[in-house]
């Protein structure tokens, strides 16, 4: 069982369940403890030892069912024609060819109609040719062929041809062609089974690889080039990213410096004891939680990227409590409520309906912000602006930008356009830029992650 279990663990890894060596030791111990007799028990036990999150439990279920699925080869009786359902008779006929058959164990197995033996033989062959190493979709035919060759398919085919020849001439008293037919049937069945088996191996070991590749690719694709059908996948990626960032960000606020006495507090609290320090207090540093204000451009010019910017906004909103979200094109609105009350599929269209796809007016949007929300800015606030800075030649209201810059801790501008485009046409980027602590091109999800990570880090340090 050592080997199948190892393979099973590999399949789990392929399905994105992290199985470390320590856990694989656990798995072996668990198996030793529970044995194989009770399938459900076996499954539950392994699941408890290996899957560590609800999502992993779900994929564990799938992998387990697929891995330990054994279609018994039903070579016998029903599904085949009449002859094979009368073993005694056919066994008689077989004797005539026993000599030829001796060299072809595969033929014997087919005639014995021993499903277990056949599937065991197939798995052994599969192990020998390394079918679990399968990586690509296109390798399936290759591995099927190799497994069959290893099982001795060529010999079987030769035998069938031989039998056919000898059955042709006379009246076929010996039942040669009859036997050939049965073998042929068995051969076809074996072919199907092997194909299915290889397919399963592919599903188990390689499929997730493809998925990972796809995700990596998406991480580096420009947001404006992403296609609608990738939306779900993107949501998953962005969510995971946002969660990772949030975990780091939620790090403890108070950090005790043990060893440094807070003399003032200690004295104060020990007054009643004549100054004998019964209660000691240590110095602490407080780490402020950042307040984040995100202002997202959803106008026509950034329409392609806007969906993903909003997606990111949504995910951040899910995981960071103190996040205020705004969206604008010609006017600016607070979208916190929309993000709160809807799930992502509804929230994004709703925001787009409310404010999206109009022509941009940064000046007006900033004015709206100052009017309604400027008072919330304080020295702990970070402002993140997601937009291209193209304002249709309207007044960019640099003065408001300056005030925002002065009041907040930092202003970060993430622009989906490459830096060389800044300042061309109606782009006001060069004028806004002096009032941003950071202004960066941010066209892929990877960029986004890096930038946000930097922001959170800078808070942790101070």
């Amino acid at each position, binding site marked *: 069982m050592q080997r199948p279990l190892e393979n099973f663990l590999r399949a789990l890894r392929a399905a994105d369940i*992290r199985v*470390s060596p*320590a*856990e694989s030791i*656990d798995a072996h*111990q*668990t198996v030793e*403890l*529970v044995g194989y007799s009770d399938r*459900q*028990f076996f499954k*539950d*036990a392994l*699941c*408890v*030892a290996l*899957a*560590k*999150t*609800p999502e*992993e*439990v779900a994929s564990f279920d799938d992998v387990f069912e697929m891995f330990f699925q054994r279609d018994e080869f039903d070579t016998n009786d029903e599904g085949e024609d009449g002859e094979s359902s009368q073993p005694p008779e056919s066994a008689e006929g077989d004797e005539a060819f026993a000599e030829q058959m001796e060299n072809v164990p595969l033929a014997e197995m087919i005639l014995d109609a021993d499903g277990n033996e056949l599937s065991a033989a197939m798995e052994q062959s599969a192990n020998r040719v390394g079918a679990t190493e399968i990586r690509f979709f296109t390798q399936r035919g290759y591995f099927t062929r190799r497994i069959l060759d290893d099982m001795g398919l060529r010999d079987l085919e030769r035998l069938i041809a031989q039998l056919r020849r000898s059955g042709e001439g006379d009246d076929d008293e010996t039942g040669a062609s009859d036997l050939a037919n049965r073998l042929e049937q068995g051969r076809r069945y074996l072919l199907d089974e092997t194909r299915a088996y290889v397919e399963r191996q592919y599903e188990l070991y390689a499929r997730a690889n493809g998925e990972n590749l796809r995700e990596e690719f998406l991480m580096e694709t420009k947001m404006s080039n992403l296609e609608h059908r990738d939306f779900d996948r993107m949501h998953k990626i962005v969510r995971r990213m946002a*969660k*990772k960032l*949030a*975990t780091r960000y*939620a*790090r*403890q*606020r*108070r950090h*005790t410096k043990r060893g440094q006495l807070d003399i003032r507090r200690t004295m104060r609290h020990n007054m009643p004891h004549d100054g*004998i*320090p*019964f209660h*000691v207090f240590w110095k602490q540093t407080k780490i402020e939680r950042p307040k984040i204000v995100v202002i997202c451009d959803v106008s026509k010019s950034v329409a392609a990227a806007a969906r993903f910017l909003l997606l990111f906004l949504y995910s951040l909103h899910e995981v960071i409590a103190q996040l205020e979200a705004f969206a604008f094109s010609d006017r600016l609105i607070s979208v916190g409520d929309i993000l709160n009350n809807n799930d992502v599929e509804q929230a994004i269209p709703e925001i787009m309906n409310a404010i999206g796809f109009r022509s941009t007016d940064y000046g007006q949007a900033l004015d709206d912000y100052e009017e309604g929300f400027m008072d919330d800015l304080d020295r702990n606030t970070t402002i993140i602006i997601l937009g291209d800075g193209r304002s249709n030649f309207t007044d960019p209201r640099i003065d408001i930008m300056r005030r925002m810059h002065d009041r907040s801790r930092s202003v970060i501008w993430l622009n989906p356009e490459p830096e060389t485009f800044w300042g061309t046409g109606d782009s006001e980027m060069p004028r806004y830029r002096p009032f941003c602590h950071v202004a960066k091109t941010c066209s892929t999800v990877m960029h986004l992650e890096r930038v946000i990570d930097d922001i959170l880090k800078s808070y942790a340090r101070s």
Partner: protein
Amino acid sequence: MTDPNAAKFENVDTIVAGLGEQGYITSQQIATAIFIAENLTKPILVEGSAGVGKTELALASAAWLGLPLIRMQCYEGLDESKALYEWKYGKQLLYTQILKDKMGDVLGDTPTLEGAMEKLHGFGDMFFSEEFLEPRPLLKALRQERGAVLLIDEIDKSDEEFEAFLLEILSAFQVTIPEIGTITSTVPPLVFLTSNNMREMGDALKRRCLHLYIPLPDAKLEERIVAARVPNIEEKLRRKLVAFVQMLREQDLKKLPSISETLDWARVLLLLHADDLTPALVHDTLNVLLKFEQDIHAVRPQIAEITRKARQYGDRGYVTPNATTS
């Protein structure tokens, strides 16, 4: 493993039965987790939404095994002086004050400073001995002679640093106190960690634990749980209220009612001497089941409909609600 308890861990069925006696109705999966945990001496990380009985599982296990339950509630800022041990600083001070006079007697006849120092060294460790050690939950659990059930509740509320600090205890069942040395448990405690998934736990911690996810129960299991916990409630009403809750869980709600809410509701109905589920009654008591204004608002218009269906199930006997709601 203590001898009288060895038999209790013989197989999964004895665990199910044992916990059942304590009024904790388990699924096979939960029992399997405990079985493995005890045999591999590994802690169990229990996850699931609020109110599915994570904490209760630890309480029931302790009662069933007859072991003391030591509970540690986690919160932000929890550190080792509150979780593991602390020196009884006040007592140390008090003793030095009282013993001040004694000092003179002890050192009185020593002529030189070196001699006095030498003598003092002999007493040096007196104030950092077990006498002055204030054991906190974790140390207490390790020092129980017969073993214990240690419940580390809501581990996700604690800081990441604290998580790291737990690792030594969870994998080796020992702690190191610099002044005294390493304290190893004689009988490793059965450890439950619960988490509401406020934050993702670190991989290192996860790796050391078995993972158990407790889902919301299906109707059959839930009926048995209600029967065990609120035994006085009439069978028909019980069936109806469970069917009602099960259907409620199919709604799109912010916080789905879990087992503890079902039990609360059953108790409320019992208290009100209700003998049937009527829309009016549901209307008045809905706030026991749903904890958000929006949820209550969303469900209110459908009360009559859901109640009607629930009553049908109650009268007809057990049918899976899923079969007919669609």
